[in-house]
């Protein structure tokens, strides 16, 4: 084997060092602090697994996990159904295809936080106005102030926002399918639904897997959507895991405790992603 030129090492070593310093060390620090009672400043001592033990009895954290998973699973399912439908529509024999595609991608260009404030107004004023006109009891008040429904408002906004990117991924997948396949299927008398089931879906299975894993991972980290819409409220009804870590860590002085929460969250995310990959890949092979 030839000797690797020194230039190649010069190309990667600085990046490796910086990555180690700004990513790996913080991860290790996080893990380390999770076994202490560090408040973010001052002295600290080791407390073993106390932080972890306390998390399991912490109602606020348990609720944040429940909310986050409920939110992430529903949003992932909705985004993928919608995005796939829109992508199939855009890939069909329609007019204004380029313009429509451009419009559907637009939300991805805009800041989630800023658009969130616009949706906040729509949910707090416009929707109740319409709700009152239609004589609906539930929708005549702001759903953001409704403890049972506020999370659905966040789902609506998150789906609105995330569909943009998913549509483009699915479109990229759809365009790898040769049109001859459809022509052949049409000659054999296969209808639109059959063509979708038998050709489209199996052939874009890989894109389906990527999209499901990516959207779930992003939604589990939800933070930007919540700040402008509910700020975690009403009460703590819509606090996500990230929000609890941020609040407790920076404002509550629970630095060590929340890093323990973050480590747990990390383990949960990895486990969930692997589990999801396994199931989806198995399905992919069968399809």
């Amino acid at each position, binding site marked *: *084997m030839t000797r*690797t030129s020194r*230039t*190649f090492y010069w*190309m*990667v070593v600085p*990046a490796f060092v910086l*990555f180690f*310093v*700004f*990513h790996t*060390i913080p*991860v290790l*620090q*996080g893990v380390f602090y999770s076994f202490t009672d560090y408040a*973010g400043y001052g002295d600290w001592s080791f407390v073993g697994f106390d932080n972890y033990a306390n998390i399991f009895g912490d109602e606020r954290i348990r609720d944040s996990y429940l909310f986050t998973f409920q939110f992430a699973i529903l949003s992932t399912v909705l985004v993928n159904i919608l995005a796939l439908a*829109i992508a199939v*529509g855009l890939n*069909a*024999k*329609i*007019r*204004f*295809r*380029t*313009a429509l*595609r*451009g*419009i559907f*991608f*637009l*939300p991805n*260009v*805009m*800041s*989630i*936080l*800023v*658009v969130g404030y*616009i*949706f906040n*107004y*729509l949910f707090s004023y416009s929707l109740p*106005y319409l709700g009152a006109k239609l004589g609906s009891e539930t929708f005549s008040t702001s759903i953001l102030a409704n403890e049972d429904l506020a999370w659905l408002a966040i789902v609506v906004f998150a789906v609105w926002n995330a569909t943009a990117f998913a549509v*483009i991924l699915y479109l*990229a997948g759809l*365009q*790898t399918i040769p049109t001859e396949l459809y022509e052949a299927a049409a000659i054999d008398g296969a209808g639109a639904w059959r063509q979708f089931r038998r050709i489209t879906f199996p052939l874009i299975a890989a*894109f389906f897997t990527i999209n499901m894993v990516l959207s779930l991972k992003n939604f589990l980290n939800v*933070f930007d959507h919540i*700040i402008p819409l509910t700020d975690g409220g009403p009460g703590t009804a819509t606090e996500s895991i*990230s929000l609890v*870590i*941020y609040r407790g860590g920076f404002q509550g002085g629970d630095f060590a405790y929340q*890093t323990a929460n*973050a480590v747990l*969250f*990390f383990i949960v995310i*990895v486990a969930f*992603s692997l589990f999801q990959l396994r199931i989806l890949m198995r399905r992919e092979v069968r399809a």
Partner: protein
Amino acid sequence: MTTDALTRSTPPAAGEAEPPPPRRRLWPGRNRDPRESFRVNWWLTALMCVLSLTVLIPLYFAIVTALKTPEELTGSGFGLPADPRWANFAEAWELTNFPRAALNSALITVGAVVLTLLTNSMVAYAISRNWHRRRFRILFFYFVSALFVPFPIIMLPVVKQTSLLFMDNQIGLIFLYTVYGLALNVFIYVGYLNSVPRELEEAAMTEGASIWTTFWRIIFPLLAPINATVGILTCLWAWNDFLLPLVVLSAPDAQTLPLVQYVFQGQFSTNYTLAFSSYLMALAPLVLVYLFAQRWVISGVMRGSVK
């Protein structure tokens, strides 16, 4: 090669060189390019147009609200303002110190994009050309595995670290975006580089060019399409990001556009119209760029997803 096949089969690449507005075409029966010689499904077209309203309506709403006076904010809020109040924009401009925030956002975004393109591509090149060496393969998986590390786990230590190293400013953010971007970008670049034939660079090297020269003169220009992809993704990320600047930036005058929107939270009920002008101004720069480069942006993103 998949990327080639993709660009070729992408409808817009086919024959529409002119910018988007399809307004000129008053006769739907006329075919503008051979791909559209099929029978247009008008029902589906109509359905898709209606669906696209879900994207456009919130924007329409933001625009009309930004032009109203506070007294006009009644009812559903979808009505047009009687007399557009452009002064809202001027006042919001002052209140948020828009030029300052826009400059910060622009500086961070441009810095992150340039530094990312120059460094991440180089790292990926070294990894891709030494794939037979275990060290480089391990490095690849080391970077890529960071994709699974949620930000909250490093958030608290990173904040301490950046303030310790005097990196709690715009320059620090540029570095962080470049370094954290490695995870995804190395993955994208290596996938692309593996399909770039080696004959060219081998020829250059037999003629005595160093690895360094070969990379900058031959490989980097060849990477143009995937550089576009990485550049677009980095740009969208750095410009719109909220959490990282929120926790890292310490000085108020270093704040980016999303952060300054907080100004309106205290006095929210009274200042909706101003707030909406400000939101629109925060969204405008990237949306305007997108309107002109729409096709390019989308094909760039698509290229990143087909490997």
